[in-house]
């Protein structure tokens, strides 16, 4: 971040010039990405509208210079949860400068189209800080339609949504129907490079939405004495509330005017709490929603905000405002937020899982998180805590892409390897999931309660997995993975025939895993994946 020397006092004009210079210099283009971090000092004490102008200009610079993997997440974030016409339009344009269209990008463009279509506004990209006030302008909807056309056959997954909007009264602006038809035509026509493989993969740029700290968790000593006031006005320190059990923490503020951020985050927290309750874990995993705006968000206000969104509030589940140690809190979580005076001017979506020591075990950033995903991770942390207490082994951590710059080099290297393994082992789409379910389910059927319908079901999904690998093999022209998975499936079936060959199941699993790995690696040279895909 410090590579780009920017002081908060720098004028908007100077900022714009710097951005232009960075975009024009291939050696410094990567620094544009740093300027998209909300906590960058350049946004300190800027108003929200100014921040929009500045970030929009960076996105437009990326549109000229090309969006790298590192910058992609910022572009997708804007499409995922942006409501400002200028930023969404700029992000839509920037996305088209990503080196290769990919099916995983289409849902983001579609979501942005759905979110912004009734707030289409004229925007001007001609010069820094310009607002369109004539008939020569573009709009976010127009830009998104062009982006969908750019995605072409890669956007087939959202074609039905585009067509539905076109058919619906008022679904899309009448005067843009030519652009709509052009997008539909582009999506329908031509061939995607690897349409089948696309369904299961995400670009590298999405690797930083989830971070899993492995053996390098930063201690929470610096904020242990941070004092919070909760929704009922009770005081509690970080240490008192967050030590001794895992916690799920989200950030929000009540004056946030983007319904896709704070309001949705707190609504989802309520749903997450219900998932914990359903699993009987609500007394083992605590939850907290911490406001970015503690000066304004008094207890009555955060209580009402939580209550209006169905949040459970008690001793284990709290809405909090920091009354002391705010800066330490901001620094500990490296919060993606900036301010004008005490008011937020821009923030990212962020959620954290803390371990029983109050250390950050996992973080979810920028893209909407999934409640079940967060609960699953929290349970892993809970199990890890239980194992540590009982002296048992630390459970294997699911391989996930990691926010490498934020962690140590060792962790980064190790995770890089794990990520490759994850390509093979982690379910990436419903069909993949069926495959894994079949393999583990069939092999380990004796260890789970008896369900007469389960075995045939698992055999069926194992066949689906085989078909999936076969399809992928056909598309890549490399069938070795399929042969290995076939052998694995055969071994698993043999182990179930009652011939005293149960141990063969282990070979079956190994062969299936190896075959899946080979199949996935064949599909694309190097590919990182994320289980849930775009939220």
């Amino acid at each position: 971040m410090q590579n780009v020397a920017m002081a908060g006092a720098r004028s908007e004009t100077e900022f714009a010039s710097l951005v232009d210079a960075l975009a024009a210099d291939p050696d410094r283009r990567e620094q544009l990405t740093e300027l998209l971090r909300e906590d960058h000092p350049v946004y300190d004490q800027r108003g929200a509208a100014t921040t929009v102008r500045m970030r929009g200009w960076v996105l437009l610079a990326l549109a000229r210079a090309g969006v790298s993997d590192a910058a992609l997440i910022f572009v997708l974030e804007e499409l995922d949860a942006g409501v400002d016409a200028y930023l969404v339009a700029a992000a839509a344009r920037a996305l088209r400068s990503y080196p290769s269209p990919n099916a995983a990008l289409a849902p983001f463009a579609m979501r942005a189209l759905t979110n912004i279509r009734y707030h289409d506004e004229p925007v001007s990209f001609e010069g820094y800080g310009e607002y369109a006030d004539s008939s020569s302008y573009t709009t976010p909807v127009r830009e998104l339609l062009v982006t969908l056309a750019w995605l072409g056959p890669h956007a087939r997954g959202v074609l039905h949504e585009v067509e539905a909007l076109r058919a619906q009264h008022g679904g899309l602006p009448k005067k843009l129907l030519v652009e709509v038809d052009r997008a539909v035509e582009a999506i329908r026509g031509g061939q995607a490079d690897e349409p089948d493989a696309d369904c299961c993969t995400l670009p590298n740029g999405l690797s930083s939405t989830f971070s899993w700290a492995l053996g390098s968790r930063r201690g929470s000593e610096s904020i242990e004495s941070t004092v919070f006031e909760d929704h009922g006005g009770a005081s509690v320190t970080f240490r008192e509330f967050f030590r001794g059990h895992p916690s799920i923490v989200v950030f929000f503020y009540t004056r946030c005017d983007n319904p896709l951020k704070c309001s949705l985050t707190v609504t989802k927290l309520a749903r997450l709490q219900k998932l914990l309750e359903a699993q009987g874990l609500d007394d083992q995993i605590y939850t907290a929603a911490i406001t970015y705006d503690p000066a304004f968000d008094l207890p009555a206000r955060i209580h009402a905000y939580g209550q209006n969104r169905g949040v459970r509030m008690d001793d284990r589940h709290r809405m909090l405002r920091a009354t002391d140690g705010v800066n330490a809190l901001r620094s500990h979580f490296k919060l993606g937020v900036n301010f004008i005076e005490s008011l937020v001017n821009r923030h990212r979506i962020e959620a954290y899982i803390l371990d029983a020591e109050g250390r950050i075990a996992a973080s979810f950033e920028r893209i909407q998180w999934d409640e079940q995903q967060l609960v699953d991770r929290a349970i892993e942390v809970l199990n890890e805590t239980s194992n540590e207490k009982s002296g048992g082994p630390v459970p294997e951590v699911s391989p996930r892409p990691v926010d490498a710059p934020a962690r140590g080099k060792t962790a980064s290297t190790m995770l890089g390897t794990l990520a490759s393994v994850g390509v093979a082992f982690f379910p990436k789409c419903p069909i993949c999931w069926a495959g894994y379910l079949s393999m583990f389910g069939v092999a380990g059927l004796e260890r789970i309660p008896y369900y007469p319908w389960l075995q045939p079901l698992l055999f069926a999904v194992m066949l689906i997995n085989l078909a999936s690998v076969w399809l992928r093999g056909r598309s890549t022209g490399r069938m070795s993975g399929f042969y290995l998975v076939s052998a694995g499936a055969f071994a698993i079936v043999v182990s179930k025939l009652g011939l005293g060959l149960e141990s063969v199941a282990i070979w079956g699993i190994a062969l299936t895993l190896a075959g899946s790995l080979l199949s996935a690696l064949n599909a694309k040279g190097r590919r990182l994946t994320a289980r849930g895909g775009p939220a």
Partner: protein
Amino acid sequence: MSKKSKASKSSKSARKPKGAKKGAAKRPSGRLMSVATNARKAINERVAAIAEAPLAVCESDENLQSMLNVLRSEEEPIEVRLAALQAIQAASFSVVTFESCRSEYIATLRQVATDPDMELRQRVLGILAREKDGFAQRKLLEGLQNPEKALVPPEKALQLLSNDVHAEAYAAAREIVNNPPSDTARREALRLLAADATAAPMFEKLLRDKDEQAEIRQISASALQALKPEKLQEHARAILLDTSEYDDIQATSLTAITQFGDEQAVAEDKTLMRRIDNMKDEASTKIKQSARRFLTKYGQ
């Protein structure tokens, strides 16, 4: 202002257009539009035609362009332009239908925001400010910082900027509180700062200042209730017990305690109860009324 009254006069006469009596809805929108855009027609006739069916604006691109042209044109009578603005804005409530018109409407509003007519500018900037439009915010802030560039008076600019707590207006508002160009500008600056979490001490001071205008003290009470509610309750109690205080601020204080006070604490406050019990008979009419409401709530 004279233009405004002229507009309302002509609008008034247009209230019951002949066509409307016969079943206005059946009148083809094409005919309405041709009357609306016909410079040779009487102003009140044009205003009535524009007002009659706002949704006609979105029936076709031609209709939209015609109305936007009327709105933009400085040659058109201001009454007709204001009617066009009002009609398009009314149509904007039909979101699904209006979607096709929206971007062009916003672009036109930005154009008209600098129109020579003050009333039109003010209304247009109001619409944009409520959409939290960055263009409007920038123009309004520029005007506060440099009065020569101001499109509207400072009090209007502050009022419009208060639509968005994220507008970077606190510094300008503080400056106006310290060095007010008018009482109204100071009042609007204080209203805007009522969302500033750091402003509570200032409002405490204003609330207790007996030399301050009643309206400013009322604003301060409301601001304090939002920023530091326990402080307002404390001050409201003190104001009620102070027999030298003014009726207005006592009435506001009593209203605050009745509406937002901690019911248990208030019920147990015998001194306060006695004081309010006296007020129901001795105080001015407006306080008597509030005192009775309070005592009814607390079962006295």
